[in-house]
């Protein structure tokens, strides 16, 4: 057994973890290219948290208890919902959305032809063709939000 051998690395499972870690690093580097964008996203998150707190304050300005739930209890629920929502939106939703689009656009073929397991690479943030630029990835993110408001 030599260094870099699959058996040395523990087989496919460890390889999938390494690929997921690599995708995470690429994703972070990609996001760090756009520093102003990060600040804007922070601002957007603050708006969303502020809205949730305002709604809660409005409801409890008309009552002391909502079906047995106090304001502090619902505040805790809101906090957990925001936390879990953040994890889902950061790590799960974008990949699932991308997978759906890749099926529609035919670009999933790139993932299927790679030696890595297509399901795990899609779930961990596969970026499609290496030729696809960050710009294109970002453009598709915008296109995703095309849904009418």
């Amino acid at each position, binding site marked *: 057994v030599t260094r870099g051998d699959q058996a040395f690395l523990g087989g496919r499972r460890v390889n999938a973890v390494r690929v997921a870690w690599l995708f995470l690093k690429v994703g972070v580097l990609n996001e760090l290219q756009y520093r*102003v*964008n990060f600040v*804007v996203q922070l*601002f*957007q998150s603050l*708006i*969303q948290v*502020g*809205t949730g707190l*305002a*709604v809660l304050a*409005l*409801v409890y*300005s*008309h*009552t002391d*208890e*909502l*079906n047995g739930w106090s304001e502090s209890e619902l505040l805790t629920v809101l906090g957990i919902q925001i936390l879990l929502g953040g994890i889902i939106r950061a790590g799960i939703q974008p990949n699932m959305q991308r997978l759906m689009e890749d099926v529609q656009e035919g670009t999933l073929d790139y993932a299927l032809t790679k030696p890595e397991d297509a399901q795990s690479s899609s779930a961990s943030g596969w970026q499609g063709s290496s030729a696809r630029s960050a710009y294109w990835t970002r*453009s598709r993110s*915008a*296109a995703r*939000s*095309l*849904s*009418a*408001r």
Partner: protein
Amino acid sequence: MSVPALPEAGPVRSIVDYYATMMRTGIQNQFQYRVAHYFYMLGMVAEPVIYLVVWTTIANESGGQVSGITAGEFAAYYIVWTLVRNMNIVFGAPFWEWRIREGHMARDLLRPLHPLHNDIAWFAGSKFVIVALWLPVAAGLIVAFEPTLDPTALEIGVFVIAIWGAYLIRTMLQSTIGMLCFWTTRGAAVFDLYMTSELLLSGRLVPLPLMPDWVETIAAFLPFQWAFFFPIDSLVGDRSTAWLLGGLAIQALWIVGLLLVFRFT
């Protein structure tokens, strides 16, 4: 041998033809995706149902009403809300962001008509499909929540006009915000701020009389309530004829005002 020129329609007839054609296209296009629409609509209905359950619970725990609004009136408000919301959904500012960034706007500008006409006409046509699909949803909500609703003929008439006014107000608002994307690629932040302001100041979250007085004062100077609260209240509330007709006039003023802002941004 020269070919005789086709008779040219006048500008008014041309634009009417264009709107009629685009609306028909919108209807046919939307009918293709009935299941997708229903899923979208069910997701959208979740929002008012949550509000409705919360405020009905508060009303029941507070002796049957909150600030004079009964549980049945809350049910009526939020069921009509679903129709108004379906009507005032428009091409959002993110669509403009995408359209400008991807270069589709350049293609649209080559057409002899402003792209806004295309957006308004196409989406207006789709509303007929959406309202038809909404009817069974509304029937289910009526059975489940037993709303108190007894509108007069005038209120129904004003409501029918007001929901189209709401559609145009939101179209102009979102299109104007979309124009920001000519200067920045991150219009989404402004759009989020707009959505939050609308949520709190339009009657979308709660009927405006439940808001603190200072919020109502701010809301009076902004267009948001004319796209949500006014159409809903025109059907659900017990308002005077002068108030109803005055509301339509204010809607018209906001549409014209926002159109002017749109033209100069």
